[in-house]
């Protein structure tokens, strides 16, 4: 997008890259895959901006599609917050938008279910998976490991376009006459399996499943590329123990995706067979309108096992990229090395391993063997250990740092705050005995919106504000960023803290209205308050959207390394062309966190500066390498 404004710069970069594109890079010794990609400088705009194989363009495509989806997902949540805050109010004024879903001034209850389902699906998959890790894994992995592009630019392009196709199908399902899928983002059968059960289980569910199959394909194509790039295409000297924590996080996130998305595929496939081919994997003993269905012998709990085997790693797929970016931004803006670099990697690995053995904590109320439940409870609570390590390290990184409160830094600190607030209630919900009480109440909603929903969004915002100069060669406006941050930060807490109370009081999730229950009427004001806060917080996001698009074209021009950061992406030209470095790829000599090193003239030493040039600050063992 902004590349248009910096076109001469970009094509110059490509031309030089074409000349030296075959410079000795250790990893291409037996590869000819990349050479021809640096040759074509006079590309048609269609190949340059639309069907591009450049990881930076693909990253931006993911980001802008993600922003589009976030607006849709946020709008849906505002609609159902209107219903929850003012259950007696009239929705007549929304008829021009919602059409027949408003009946006699009331929101259609079936459509309410569709709203929460689509809000969950869109936010979890399309925004926080594709929009977050899709954007930053694509944009940052080759730049930070020192590669010209992804291992396979073509597969990377396919990854985006499968996501685009999946997005189209999901988007059109919003406009079906019977409405989009409505059985919750977890699409539990039998509700989701029987088209005659609710209107949303008809065509809407079919399109949901088809869309998700394409989404899974997109994630797999992207994920294998990310992992291969990290394994194979690191520049000289970039050992795994010199990788920025962002890359470690993206790497492990991609591995989680490769291992867990195929399981969702299996679940979706069997569900498709149950819906359309008369099998009974998940269906048994069902009566609809007095009629017995022929399906016998299926097990709906089996679907939950398959779904949550993906579903649990999925929440780490959402949060880990945010963790990695926050680690990077905190260290850069505190002008201090990240505290406990190896412990940070270890805790990411620990979280990744644990994420595969805790799925049944979503299923404590399915009547599972209590002993099995206690095993899953034990494993779940262990996650507090690596999470605690991370939080401790972030706080210790901030401790006595020379903190620069950039917008990205504020969002990173906000991330840590939300992660703590939401994580603590995870310890409550991880206990089977407490979970049986809290299950499916607003306490759960509050928990996961804080710990992985809002915090992942904060990670996304932090990443956009921080790497915007690298993406578009311009800066985002700091003042607008501050307003955006404070409204969002206050908004998130004002929305989700009260939800804990109404959750403990027993409010169930996904209910259209509680006006039928006297015991809940005392919380009517609280619900109204939450709705007001939610709508204000959502409205505040338009400040960000304005800032983002305005700054692409009109933002203050960036310098090459505006944050005085140490990682490799800031050694590229202001707006790097395809191939990233016009000349040879820089080699790496040191870890990425040499901030405020005692004895050094500057308060940061980039990774590509050899020890021989920093005699004054070298530690004894580093001096040995330099001598």
């Amino acid at each position, binding site marked *: 997008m902004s590349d248009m404004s910096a076109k001469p710069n970009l094509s110059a970069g490509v031309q030089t890259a074409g000349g030296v594109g075959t410079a000795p890079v250790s990893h291409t010794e037996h590869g000819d895959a990349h050479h021809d990609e640096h040759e074509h400088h006079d590309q048609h705009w269609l190949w340059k901006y639309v069907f591009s194989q450049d990881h930076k363009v693909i990253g931006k495509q993911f980001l802008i599609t993600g922003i589009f989806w976030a607006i849709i997902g946020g709008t849906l949540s505002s609609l159902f917050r209107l219903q929850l805050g003012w259950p007696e109010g009239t929705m007549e004024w929304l008829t021009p938008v919602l059409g027949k879903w408003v009946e006699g001034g009331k929101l259609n209850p079936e459509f309410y279910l569709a709203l929460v389902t689509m809000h969950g699906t869109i936010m979890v998959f399309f925004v926080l998976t594709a929009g977050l890790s899709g954007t930053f894994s694509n944009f940052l992995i080759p730049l930070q490991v020192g590669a010209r592009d992804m291992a396979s630019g073509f597969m990377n392009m396919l990854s985006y376009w499968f996501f685009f196709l999946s997005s189209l199908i999901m988007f059109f399902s919003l406009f079906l006459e019977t409405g989009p899928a409505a059985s919750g983002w977890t699409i539990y059968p039998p509700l989701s399996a029987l088209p005659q059960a609710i209107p949303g289980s008809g065509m809407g569910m079919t399109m949901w499943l088809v869309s998700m199959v394409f989404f899974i394909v997109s994630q797999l194509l992207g994920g294998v590329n990310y992992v291969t790039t990290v394994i194979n295409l690191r520049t*000289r000297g970039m*050992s795994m123990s010199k990788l920025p924590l962002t890359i470690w996080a993206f790497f492990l996130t991609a591995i989680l995706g490769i291992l867990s998305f195929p399981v969702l595929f299996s679940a979706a496939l069997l569900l498709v067979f149950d819906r359309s081919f008369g099998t*009974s*994997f998940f269906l048994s003993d069902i009566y609809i309108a007095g009629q017995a269905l022929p399906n016998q012998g299926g097990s709906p709990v089996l679907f939950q*096992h398959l779904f949550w085997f993906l579903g649990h790693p999925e929440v780490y797929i959402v949060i880990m990229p945010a963790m990695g970016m926050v680690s990077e931004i905190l260290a850069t803006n505190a002008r201090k090395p990240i505290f406990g670099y190896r412990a940070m990697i270890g805790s990411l690995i620990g979280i990744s391993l644990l994420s595969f053995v805790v799925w049944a904590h979503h299923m404590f109320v399915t009547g599972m063997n209590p002993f099995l439940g206690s095993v899953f409870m034990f494993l779940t609570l262990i996650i507090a250990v690596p999470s605690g390590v991370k939080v401790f390290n972030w706080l210790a990184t901030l401790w006595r740092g020379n903190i620069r409160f950039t917008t990205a830094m504020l969002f990173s600190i906000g991330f840590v705050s939300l992660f703590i607030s939401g994580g603590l209630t995870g310890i409550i919900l991880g206990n089977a005995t407490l979970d049986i009480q809290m299950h499916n109440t607003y306490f759960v909603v509050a928990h996961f919106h804080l710990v992985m929903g809002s915090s992942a969004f904060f990670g996304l915002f932090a990443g956009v504000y921080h790497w915007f100069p690298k993406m578009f060669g311009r800066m985002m406006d700091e003042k607008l960023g501050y307003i955006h941050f404070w409204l969002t930060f206050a908004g998130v807490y004002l929305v989700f803290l009260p939800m804990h109370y109404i959750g403990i009081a027993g409010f169930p999730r996904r209910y259209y209205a509680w006006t039928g229950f006297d015991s809940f009427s005392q919380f009517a004001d609280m619900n109204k308050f939450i709705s007001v806060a939610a709508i204000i917080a959502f409205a505040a996001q338009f400040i960000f959207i304005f800032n983002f698009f305005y700054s692409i074209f009109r933002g203050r021009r960036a310098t090459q390394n505006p944050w005085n950061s140490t990682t490799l992406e800031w050694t590229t030209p202001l707006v790097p062309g395809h191939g990233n470095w016009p000349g040879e790829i820089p080699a790496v000599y040191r870890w990425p966190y040499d901030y405020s090193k005692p004895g050094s003239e500057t308060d940061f030493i980039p990774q590509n500066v*050899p020890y021989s040039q920093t005699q004054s600050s070298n530690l004894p063992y580093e001096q040995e390498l330099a001598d």
Partner: protein
Amino acid sequence: MNPIETFSEKEVGLGWHPKRVLLILLMVSSTMIFASLTSGFIVRRDEGNWREFDLPTIMLLNTIVIALSSIALQWAYSSAKKDEIGRVKIGLAITLGLGLVFLVGQWLCWGDLVAGRTFFGGIDANVSGSFVYVLMGMHAFHLLAGLIFLAVVLRRTFNYQVHSRALLSIGNASILWHFLGALWLYLYLFLLLNH
């Protein structure tokens, strides 16, 4: 820069070509599909209402066919190493042929299952039978991808793009094909031992 300052010369990337790493990662994700389906099979079986049936004998023949195809491909690969291009072509063609025979055999196997009143869906179906169709179908779908890959390699061989210094494509094809063969062997033994 001080010329003595050297890198810790760790070989980046396990020494494998990126395309091979991509292929192996995709195979890992395929493995997860079958791992989830077969664990679903076991979990579901333990809940009862599970109709047992005998596997058609043609399944054993198919297993032998796919094993032979792997041997033929390995022969083609070692011929490519020795630059005996004629044998590479024959080996690849045999592998392709046996792969097609295997697919036809699986189709006939489905016919035998239906003849034995084991159905995929409908009123008379039981989940045990549905699972067998899903496992075989998913495997066949993967095998189609393998066949396309083999056909591409065969075409490359005719274009003199496969020889002792260009073993990547045929190497990757044989990794994939052996994986698909091993996958079928696993599924066959799994079904054999769990019925």
